[in-house]
């Protein structure tokens, strides 16, 4: 039993090495951003994964617990950005400016996400020292449409990478959290399209808590009960003082 964790750690290390080696073999640029895990499209009302919606559906992005940039804003000028780019654009190739994301091919469909009040989520500050990503707003797709109708930006049907990224003061990508969304034409929607999210099946922020709390409850009851039983036994066995 004692050696099991070491075995798991060794397997994890080996898997990491293989992954890193594989990325190097496929020629990922040295300056490329690094995935720091999956992003999850969430329903802000319940904080549960949200897998489908329309252009006016409100959603937000969940990141793994304590998701953070490598460095913070206050001391090191790192900032938090949002992005939606076509699936053909690898999110690890992005860089960021005061207007949002861009990639080496200058794909015209690279955009920042836009919050429910119509403001792009760009160059947000991290928490001091920890670099933690904080205050991710609520979003919708009202600023976009399938055919750039009205004053909206063009977002043709297809699959896109959507996520949150950190970048240095010079806009060089640091780490990112990605999830894919697929947009499908839908005449009934005001923007002419609806979406589905390829949310990860695990790593939703609240899942560990939902599991840990009942387990801790059982553990505490067990310990408390054990102590009470122990005390009763000792009371029975203790000699009567005179």
């Amino acid at each position, binding site marked *: 039993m004692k050696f099991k964790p070491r075995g798991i750690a060794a397997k994890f290390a080996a898997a990491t090495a293989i992954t890193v080696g594989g990325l190097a073999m496929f020629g990922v640029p040295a300056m490329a951003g690094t995935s720091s895990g999956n992003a999850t499209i969430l329903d*802000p*009302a*319940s*904080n549960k994964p949200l897998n489908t919606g329309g252009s006016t559906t409100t959603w937000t992005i969940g990141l793994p617990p304590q998701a953070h940039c490598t460095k*913070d*804003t*206050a*001391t*090191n*000028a790192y*900032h938090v950005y949002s992005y939606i780019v076509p699936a053909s654009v690898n999110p690890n190739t992005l860089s960021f*400016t*005061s*207007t949002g994301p861009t990639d080496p091919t200058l794909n015209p469909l690279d*955009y920042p996400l*836009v*919050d*429910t*009040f*119509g*403001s*792009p989520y*760009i*160059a*947000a*500050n*991290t*928490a*001091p020292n920890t670099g933690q990503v*904080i*205050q991710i707003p609520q979003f919708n797709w009202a*600023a976009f449409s399938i055919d750039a109708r009205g*004053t909206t*930006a063009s977002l043709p049907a297809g699959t896109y990478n959507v996520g949150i990224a950190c970048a240095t*003061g*010079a*806009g060089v990508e640091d780490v990112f959290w990605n999830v894919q969304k697929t947009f499908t034409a839908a005449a009934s929607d005001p923007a002419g399209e609806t979406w589905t999210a390829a949310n990860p099946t695990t790593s939703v922020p*609240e899942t560990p*808590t*939902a599991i840990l*709390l*009942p387990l*801790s*409850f059982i553990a*505490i*009851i067990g*310990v*408390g009960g054990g*102590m*009470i039983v*122990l*005390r009763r036994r*000792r009371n029975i066995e203790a000699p009567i003082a005179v």
Partner: protein
Amino acid sequence: MKKLNLKAAGRVAAILATSSMMATLGNLVGVSQTQAGADPATASAYVGVGSDTIQDLFDAYSGANPYPASSATQYYTPLHGSAASGNKTISSWDAIPAGGSASAPGCIVAKYGGGSFDRPNGSGNGIAALSHAIDSTPWFNPSLPASCTGNTAPGGNVSGQIDFARSSRGPKAGTSPCTAAAASCLSFIPFARDAVSFAYFDHGLNEIATLTTAQLQQLYSNTTTGSITLANGNIVKACITQQGSGTTGFWETALGITDATAQAASAASGCTANPSLLEENGANQFYTFASTLPAGQDAVVDFSVGSWISQANGAALDRSATARANFVDMGAIDALGKPYTGTAPNEAPNTTFYNSTTYGRNLQVVVQTSRLGTFGDAGLKSLFLGASAAVCSASAQTTAAKFGFDSTLVGGTCGTAVTANLYS
């Protein structure tokens, strides 16, 4: 003892178990997952820096008390955008904090989690700092001694920390309109009108209550003595306010004199160092110099009329009370008349003076042009862009009028953006 310990342990276990159950229950019903809906307004407010002239007005627009705590304390309705754009508000950092000075304005952390940097002092500083915030290059105030982290070259991190600059001047001549990519453009948006004249001290004789443009040009062009001699033999000395101030730049442009010349004249008169660190719109500091002059020697300094009125009426932080009590007043230029009418606390703009194409000026908000575009920032647009913007509303214009600025004269152009390059 053992008996007691066991009881205590049992109680702790019971409390923890109960807490765990409640937390689990909360988790199940989603109580602990609900996001707060009323974070502090400052968390989403747009941050502005820059002009001294309109710092008090923007204090009012941000809902802060623009006057030191006293019986005269008054709060104004904060400027806020439309409901559809989130009712966004503003946070405005003064050019000079109460108790501070142009030579030591200190440093600020403009947004939560941001870095510390030099407090931008004046329109020029504000526009420069905004430009650095847009192109993500460090910024510091080169006129100041090191006082903040990042104060010396290359400077502090301002990227993303500033959303707008307050400016008492428009784009520099020759820099408008911007023809480069929108990301590297600024937009100047007028919202009210001011005028600039000279404040003077003549020992209460009123012999320089009116000067001509020609006299002022001669005065600020004299880099040898920084003075002119009146017909009665009295001498008038030139004072210029700090370099980078929108008021300073506007005054120099109105007189057709370069900054270098005006700074040299002011230094030659003994009024300031070169470059000047004389705080604009603070007549007390001007009086500190003027009061040392013997009889027969007078002095003048450039001054925002709106700021003068707002201080005299008690709407803004009063940095001129001592000077006013010792005969410092605003002077008339040519046939425009005295730039304000009435007496404190009911002084009002002289519309003829404010209408002058030479001495009247529009006050501006400066923002990144791309944030005003179709795919821009709805909150920022709702606050500043177009005739229906919050800053052009009747309420906001009434507040501007209380601070000595004329809102009606700019009516036709309120909210209409003019583009210029970064750093213009």
